[in-house]
């Protein structure tokens, strides 16, 4: 079956512009996570969605970051007024439900110039 997909795979943007990253989770997976991986660092939790419950936004680094998810389908991560320190690989993962192993997408490599 289809895995987690993310688009775009690469995004280069100018400082100050807004970007939108998309994640298509595995069908039937109720939990969805966004992570960020900066060069040479581990995965940094950003936000978690579980079904129709209120998302856990505790990992979002600033109010320039926001994410949406409609039901148990597609999610979008939006970064407004991008800064150079936002350059990273943004990974999306889904799991059957909270606490189960996560299946990751290939990531979106964001470069802010």
């Amino acid at each position: 079956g289809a895995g987690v997909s993310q688009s775009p795979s690469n995004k280069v943007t100018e400082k100050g512009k807004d970007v939108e990253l998309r994640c298509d989770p595995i069908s039937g997976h109720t939990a969805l996570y966004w992570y960020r991986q900066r060069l040479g660092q581990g995965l940094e939790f950003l936000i978690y969605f579980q079904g129709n419950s209120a998302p856990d936004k505790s990992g979002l680094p600033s109010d320039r970051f926001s994410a949406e998810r409609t039901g148990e389908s597609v999610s979008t991560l939006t970064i407004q007024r991008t800064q150079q320190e936002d350059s990273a690989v943004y990974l999306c993962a889904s799991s059957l439900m909270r606490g189960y192993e996560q299946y990751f997408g290939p990531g979106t490599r964001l470069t802010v110039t």
Partner: protein
Amino acid sequence: DQQVKQNSPSLSVQEGRISILNCDYTNSMFDYFLWYKKYPAEGPTFLISISSIKDKNEDGRFTVFLNKSAKHLSLHIVPSQPGDSAVYFCAANENTGNQFYFGTGTSLTVIP
């Protein structure tokens, strides 16, 4: 603060020998631990997990050991194969939490 630590950024092992990747954690409330494998330009893929009620879990060539008193887990790969060359991440979470905490990864190179 890094709640899950992988202190060895890289490891090289001869094909056929054992690879041992280590991971330490600080939060005693963690009760579920996982290992992921990551190839370049791909997302991490789930490898093996262990819950805190066990101290060992085996799946083919992969075995994860958990030492709760030392807050330490390790992944053993035996025999190691060149295709195992990848970055390995350990991760942990607590049953009541939403977050999975990841280590910084260990890059394993298996030399043919």
